[in-house]
C-alpha cells in the first residue's frame, strides 16, 4: 500500500504543537481585532501526533528517487552529488538566524561571502559584476532580459522588441522573453546542431534586442560558430544572453564572456552542486559585462576600500529595480560558495573535464543501440533518439524511461529538445563512477533488447515502483488538486 496523505492520520483533537502560555497580560482577541477581520472557521489542517508525522514524511521520502539514492542522468538538470558539508555550513546559526534587515555591521560574514561569491562567479563567467538576487534559472533569465532592455533604453534603442531563440532552446527562454514583453523569434538549428547562421542573419535587424543561447546547447553540443554568432548579433546592435544551464561543461575551460556573451546566468543548483530540493530552491545569479553594470538590481555588496568593510549598496539609480525581496537565496549562496571554495580552480576544471568524459563515454557505447542524431563529440550531455526503436518495436522514449525506473535509475529528460523526435537527453555528471556508467549502459542495452524480445515488459513498466505508470491525461482532464474531507469531494 503506498503511503496515504497526512490527512489520513488526522483526528479531531489529536496532536498539534503546544506553545508556552502567554507571559503577558491577555485581553480577548475581539478587543484587538475588528470582528469582521476575525477568522470564523479554522483551516482544516491535519491534526496528527508527532510520531505519525515523522513516520509519514519518512515514508514519503522513501518513495523518492534522489541523487542520494541513485543515478540521476536527467539531461539539462545536472543532478550531481550535493556535498553534505554544504548542508552543514548553511545551517550554521550565524547564517540561519540572521535577519535580512540586520545592520550591515552585524552581518560582515554574510556580506563577505556574497562579495567573494560574486567575484568567483564573474571570474568563472568572464563577467564584470553580478547580481545574486535571482531565485532560480528562469528568474535569472528574466533579470537578464530586463537588464538588456534597460541597456537598450538607456542608449535610445527602446524600440528593439525582438528576442531570438534557437529552436533547441529551453522553454524558459521564450517564456522569459515574452514575460519581459518581447516578441520571440525562433531560429532553426543547422545540420550539426548549432545555430543556423544563415537563418540567424536573416532575422537579425534593428529590432533585435538579444539572442538567448545555451552553449553547449541543449543537444550537448558546443556551437563552434559562437564567435561568429556574437559578431553578427553585436553588429546588429543586439546583445548575447547566456543561459547557464549547461555551464557544467566549461568551468575553467571556456568563459561565456570570452565567447562574446554580454549577460550570463548561473544555476547554482546545477553547476555548483546545491541540492535541487524536489524542485527548488535554486539560485540564478546573473553576471554582466561592464556596460550593463549600472542596470544591475540594488542592492549590490560593495567593499569600502578605506575600511575594508562590506556594505549593501542600495544607491543604484539606473537599476532595473528589484527582482525579489532581500538579497537572493542566501542559504543557497552559502552552499555554492562552499562548493567553489572546496574545489578551487583545478577542481572546477576537473569537474567539467570529467563531466564531458563521462558523457562521451556513455554516448559512444549507446550510439549503436539508439539513434545518435548528431554524431559529434558531445560536451557534458548528449541526446539520443529512440525513433529507431519506435519504428522497429513500437517502444517509445517514454517506455524506455519508465523501464529504467525498474533498475533504480532515474530516466533521462525525454522529448526534449523538441527538435529531436523521441529524444533521450542524458547528462551523467562528473560525480558518477565508471561502474555506475557501465551499469547504465548495460541496462540501456538490456532495455533495447527487451524492446525487441519482450516489448510488453517495457511497455508496462515500471513494475517495481510504489505506484505503476500513472494516467497523466486523466489528471489534466479532471483535475483534483487538493484533498477534501470524505463526503465533500
Amino acid at each position, binding site marked *: 500500500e503506498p503511503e496515504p496523505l497526512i490527512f489520513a492520520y488526522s483526528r479531531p483533537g489529536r496532536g498539534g504543537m503546544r506553545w508556552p502560555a502567554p507571559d503577558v497580560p491577555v485581553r480577548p482577541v475581539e478587543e484587538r481585532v475588528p470582528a469582521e477581520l476575525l477568522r470564523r472557521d*479554522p483551516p482544516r489542517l491535519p491534526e496528527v501526533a508527532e510520531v505519525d508525522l515523522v513516520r509519514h514524511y519518512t515514508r514519503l521520502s522513501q518513495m523518492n528517487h534522489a541523487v542520494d539514492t541513485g543515478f540521476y542522468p536527467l539531461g539539462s538538470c545536472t543532478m550531481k552529488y550535493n556535498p553534505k558539508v554544504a548542508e552543514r555550513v548553511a545551517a550554521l546559526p550565524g547564517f540561519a538566524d540572521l535577519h535580512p534587515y540586520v545592520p550591515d555591521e552585524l552581518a560582515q560574514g*554574510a556580506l563577505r561571502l556574497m562579495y567573494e561569491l560574486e567575484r568567483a562567479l564573474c571570474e568563472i563567467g568572464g563577467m564584470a559584476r553580478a547580481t545574486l538576487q535571482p531565485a532560480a534559472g528562469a528568474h535569472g533569465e528574466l533579470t537578464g532580459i530586463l537588464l538588456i532592455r534597460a541597456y537598450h533604453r538607456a542608449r535610445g534603442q527602446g524600440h528593439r522588441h525582438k528576442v531570438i531563440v534557437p529552436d533547441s532552446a529551453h522553454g524558459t527562454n521564450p517564456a522569459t522573453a515574452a514575460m519581459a514583453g518581447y516578441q520571440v523569434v525562433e531560429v532553426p538549428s543547422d545540420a550539426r546542431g548549432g545555430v543556423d547562421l544563415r537563418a540567424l542573419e536573416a532575422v537579425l535587424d534593428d529590432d533585435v534586442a538579444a539572442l538567448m543561447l545555451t552553449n553547449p546547447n541543449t543537444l550537448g553540443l558546443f556551437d563552434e560558430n559562437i564567435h561568429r554568432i556574437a559578431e553578427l548579433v553585436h553588429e546588429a546592435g543586439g546583445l548575447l544572453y547566456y543561459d547557464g544551464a549547461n555551464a557544467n561543461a566549461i568551468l575553467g575551460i571556456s568563459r561565456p564572456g570570452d565567447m562574446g556573451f554580454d549577460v550570463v546566468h548561473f544555476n547554482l543548483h546545477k553547476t555548483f552542486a546545491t*541540492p535541487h530540493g524536489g524542485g527548488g530552491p535554486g539560485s540564478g545569479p546573473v553576471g554582466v559585462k561592464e556596460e550593463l553594470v549600472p542596470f544591475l538590481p540594488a542592492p549590490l555588496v560593495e567593499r569600502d576600500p578605506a575600511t575594508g568593510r562590506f556594505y549593501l549598496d542600495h544607491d543604484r539609480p539606473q537599476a*532595473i*529595480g528589484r527582482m525579489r*525581496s532581500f538579497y537572493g537565496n542566501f542559504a543557497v549562496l552559502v552552499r555554492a560558495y562552499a562548493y567553489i571554495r572546496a574545489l578551487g580552480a583545478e577542481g572546477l576544471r576537473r569537474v567539467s573535464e570529467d563531466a564531458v568524459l563521462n558523457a562521451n563515454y556513455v554516448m559512444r557505447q549507446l550510439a549503436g543501440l539508439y539513434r545518435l542524431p548528431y554524431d559529434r563529440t558531445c560536451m557534458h550531455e548528449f541526446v539520443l533518439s529512440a525513433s529507431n526503436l519506435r519504428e522497429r518495436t513500437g517502444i517509445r522514449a517514454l517506455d524506455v524511461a519508465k523501464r529504467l525506473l525498474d533498475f533504480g535509475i532515474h530516466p533521462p529528460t525525454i522529448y526534449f529538445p523538441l527538435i529531436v523526435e523521441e529524444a533521450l537527453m542524458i547528462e551523467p555528471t562528473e560525480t558518477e563512477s565508471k561502474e555506475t556508467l557501465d551499469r547504465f549502459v548495460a541496462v540501456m542495452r538490456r532495455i533495447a533488447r527487451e524492446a525487441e524480445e519482450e516489448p510488453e515488459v517495457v511497455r508496462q513498466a515500471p513494475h517495481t515502483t510504489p505506484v505503476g505508470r500513472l494516467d497523466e491525461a486523466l489528471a*489534466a482532464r479532471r483535475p483534483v488538486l487538493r484533498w477534501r474531507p470524505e463526503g465533500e469531494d
Partner: protein
Amino acid sequence: MAIDYIPHTDEDREAMLAALGIASVDELFRDIPPELRLGRPLDLPPALTEPELVAHLEALAAANPGATKVCFLGGGVYDHFIPSVVPYLAGRGEFATAYTPYQPEVSQGTLRAIFEFQTMIAELTGLDVANASMYDGATALAEAAFMAVNIARRERIVVLGGVHPEARQVLQTYAAGQALPVTVVPVDPEQGTTDLAALDRVLAAGDVACVLIQQPNFYGCLEPAPEIARRAKGAGAMVVVSADPVSLGLLEAPGRYGADIVVGDGQSLGLPMAYGGPHFGFFACRAEYVRRLPGRIVGRTVDRRGREGYVLTLQTREQHIRRDRATSNICTNHSLMALAATIHLAALGPRGLRQLAELCLHKAHYLAERIEALPGFRRVFRAPFFKEFVVACQRPGFDPAAAALDAGYLVGPDLGRWEPARRGQLLVAVTERRTRAEMDGLVAAWGVRA
C-alpha cells in the same frame, strides 16, 4: 584540489579514454575554438579541505553577530520558533536531492507532500486551489498581478501603499517589462491603512485589473480588507491579497471576503530567516482560474492498477510546453521550502496555528502599550495591528535603534530606508519567541535614564 567529489581514479580515466580511442580529455573539447579556451587557471582562492572549509565558513558565520541578538526586526521576515521535526524531515536526502518530479512513479514523496501543501494553502487562504510554490511573496504578488491582468483583460494594476515597498518594487520591475501601468494608493497617515477615498478615485476610472492588498500591511496594521475587496469588486477589479500565513490562524481567510487570488511569503511557516532566503511564495486562487495559474501544480490520478497516485498536471500552462505563451517562465520553484512549511503546518495543526497567532498578538500588544507609555515614544499609526507596529521617538538626540542594539536588541527596519520622510520610524515585530523579560529589557533600554 582539496575535495573533488569525483569517484574516478586515474585508472578509470585511462580506461574511459581508451574506450573512446583518445589520448587525453582535451580532445573532447576540440569543438571549442582555441581562441575561446581560457588557457590559464581560473583566478580563484586556493581549494580547501573539508576541515579547512568548515573552519572558514564557521569564521564567516561567527562574523555575523546580528544572528545572536534578540530580534524584534520585522518587515516580512520573522524570528519564529521552528519545530524540531521540520528541518529534520525536510533535510532528508531523498527530499533535498531530488528534482522536480518529472517521473511521478519515483517521486511520490515529493508529489504527495506538495499535494498536501496545496491543500493546506487552500485551507489557509479560503480558496480552491494553490500551486506548488513560488520564489517568495514579492514575486508571487507580481505574478498574481499578471494573472489578474490576463483574466480581467484590463491593464492597470493598483497596489495599496501598505504593500511591502520591496514587493512594490518587484511589481514595478515585472510590470515594466510588459509596460503595465501601476498605480499606488496612499495610506492614511494617521490610520496606517488604505486611504479609501483615494482608492475610490483610482477605481472610478474603470480600468483597474486588480487591487493588491497586503494584510496585515507593511506597517503591521490591519487593513479593512473586506471593505477594500467590496469596493474593488464593485469596480470590476480582481482582488489579490498578500497575507502573512501565521496571521491566518486568527484572521479571516481572504477567500471568504472576496479575494480572487491570495499570495504571501511562507518564511513564517518553519523556515529560518537565513538573511532573507530561500523562503517561498504561496499562490492560491479560485477554481475557475486554475488554468491561468503560474508554476507547478500537482494533481491526483490513478495508475494502471487503479491505485491513487500524484503527478504534475495542467502542464500546458507551463514554459516547457507552451514556451512564449506560458502563464509564467517559472520552472524551478521553492519546493523544499514548501515541504518544510507543510510539515510545519502539520505539526501545528489548526489549534497550534491559532495559538501561535494569538501569542504574537498578545505579546505585540503588550510591548506596544509599554512603549507607548515611554516618554517621547509614540505608536505612529492608530489602526489595529497584529504582531508588528511602527514606533517613533521624539526625544532629541536619542537614537532608539542604537540604544536597543547597545542592550542587545534589534529593532526595525527604519522606514526611512524606503520613505525618507519617515526616517527614525521603526518597525517593531514581536513573535511568540520574545519573552516578557526581553520586551521589558527593550523598554528599559528606551527608558529615560535617571
